[in-house]
């Protein structure tokens, strides 16, 4: 997924012809967004160099969808972002797919397809679709966005209504990821491959309007070689990571009220010379209310345990209490202001903090963030 400005030009041309088609139902639909944010922490650099404030928090996307007929459509979205060391504005295909909706209860997508995982994963990079700036990092870490939001493969999906008994919304998929792992702590990774990835998500929409619950599963394997450039005598070593994630979701959304809770349980087996098993946990509860059509307030509490073998000590957990305000300034423009109080250092990157070990970083810290988005 390297730079691809050719497709940008193609999208621009499609935009130019989008209004030339008189039939609303098969016309090309063009949408896009640009976001700019800022981050400031009271201590510790988080996601970028934030101790003195950072504006390295920019996102842009543009997509088109062309319905070919009642059942078949094609589309793509280009996405670029800058967030500290992540992104650097390289345009990537966020999704690129053929969609065939045979029946309401069975359709297929093929190509680069967004990964459904919980309430937010498949649109986690779309600010306009969320009530907050930073989604709960226990489930949707910003650092995963470069590779866990979409997979290349196939997906079957459907929706089946049981009338007064509610409805099921389901998706299953298999494919692969194309990812890079940056050098970290003196280790260089190469020959990275994802030989398999499989998962699914099902939501049950209850007869109580606005209430739904669901389960997501995501499992996959990553193979890679690694080496220590400072110790060339060790040569190339191999590592295999097999991970399975289960995520339970509950949501009530009605009349301006938004209540959500999710619980993640993750199990991974890392094999170098001998296998090492790790279990991780993440969870959050969120409550929001839309006071006015243009003003929504949201509170959440998020908790992460990256390794359940050890949960005490500042570097083994992350507590995050957040309050956010979303102002819909106009039909295509929004502004968000958000404050976080964090306890723990588990989500911090030592390389952003002068290689200070996590157990020596500030235990309690604040994060203030603001973001504005224009979309159409």
């Amino acid at each position, binding site marked *: 997924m390297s730079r691809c400005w050719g497709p940008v030009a193609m999208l621009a041309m499609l935009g130019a012809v989008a209004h030339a088609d008189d039939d*609303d*139902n098969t016309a090309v*639909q063009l*949408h896009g*967004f640009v976001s700019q944010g800022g981050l400031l922490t009271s201590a510790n650099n988080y996601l970028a160099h934030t101790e003195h404030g950072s504006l390295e928090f920019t996102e842009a*996307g543009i*997509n088109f*969808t062309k*319905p070919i007929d*009642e059942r078949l*459509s094609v*589309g793509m*979205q280009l996405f670029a972002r800058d967030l500290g060391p992540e992104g650097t504005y390289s345009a990537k295909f966020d*999704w690129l*797919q053929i*969609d065939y*909706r045979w*029946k*309401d209860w069975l359709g297929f*997508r093929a190509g680069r*397809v*967004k990964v459904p995982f919980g309430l937010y994963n*498949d*649109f986690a990079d*779309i600010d*306009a*679709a969320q009530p907050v700036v930073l989604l709960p990092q226990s489930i949707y870490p910003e650092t995963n966005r470069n590779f866990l939001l979409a997979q290349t493969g196939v997906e079957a999906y459907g*929706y089946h*209504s049981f*009338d*007064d008994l509610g*409805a099921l*919304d389901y998706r299953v998929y298999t494919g692969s990821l194309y990812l890079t792992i940056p050098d970290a702590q003196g280790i260089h990774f190469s020959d990275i491959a994802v030989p398999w990835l499989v998962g699914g998500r099902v939501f049950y929409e209850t007869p109580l*309007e*606005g209430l739904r619950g669901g389960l997501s599963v995501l499992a996959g394997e990553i193979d890679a070689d690694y080496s220590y450039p400072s110790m060339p005598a060790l040569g190339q070593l191999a590592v295999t990571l097999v991970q399975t994630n289960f995520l339970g979701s509950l949501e009530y*959304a*009605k*009349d*301006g009220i938004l209540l959500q809770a999710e619980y993640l349980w993750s199990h991974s087996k890392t094999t170098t010379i001998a296998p090492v098993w790790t279990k991780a946990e993440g969870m959050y509860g969120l409550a929001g209310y*839309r*006071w*006015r*059509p*243009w*003003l*929504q307030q949201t509170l959440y509490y998020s908790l992460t345990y990256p390794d359940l073998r050890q949960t005490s000590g500042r570097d083994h957990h992350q507590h995050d209490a957040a309050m956010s305000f979303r102002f*819909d300034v106009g*039909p295509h423009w929004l502004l968000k202001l958000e404050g976080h109080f964090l306890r723990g250092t588990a989500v911090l990157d030592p390389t952003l903090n002068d290689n200070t070990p996590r157990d020596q970083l500030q235990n309690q810290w604040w994060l203030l963030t603001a973001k504005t988005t224009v*979309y159409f």
Partner: protein
Amino acid sequence: MRWLVVLALVLAPAVAAEPIALHVIVNAKNPAKSVDKREVAEAFLKKRTRWDDDSAILPVDLNQKSSVRERFSRDLLGRDVASVRRYWAQIVFSGRGVAPPELGSEADVVKYVAAHAGAIGYVASGTDLTGVKVVEVE
């Protein structure tokens, strides 16, 4: 204290407007005489895309500032227009579909529904319904 008064005025619920009587309309050739409320919601959120005869359902919306749309969204979709817009942002930007067309006036909605066999729309009562028919919402 002044800022508290200002805050209260900003956050206070809007004064209840006169209720708007709505009609859900379909093409005159559509055999349906009534539709379930849940089916209407599923059709406008494009979770249900087929009529019983397997022809395509073509929902059509009014523009976002329309008071008729606000009433329709609250009463039949169970959410306000802002929530519906966020729903469509989720769908559109994750590649899962496209939103229904948004038309500028109820006359345009009637014209669209009259021209498309599978269309379904909504208008305030009193709108000229030439070429379409009203279906009862159960």
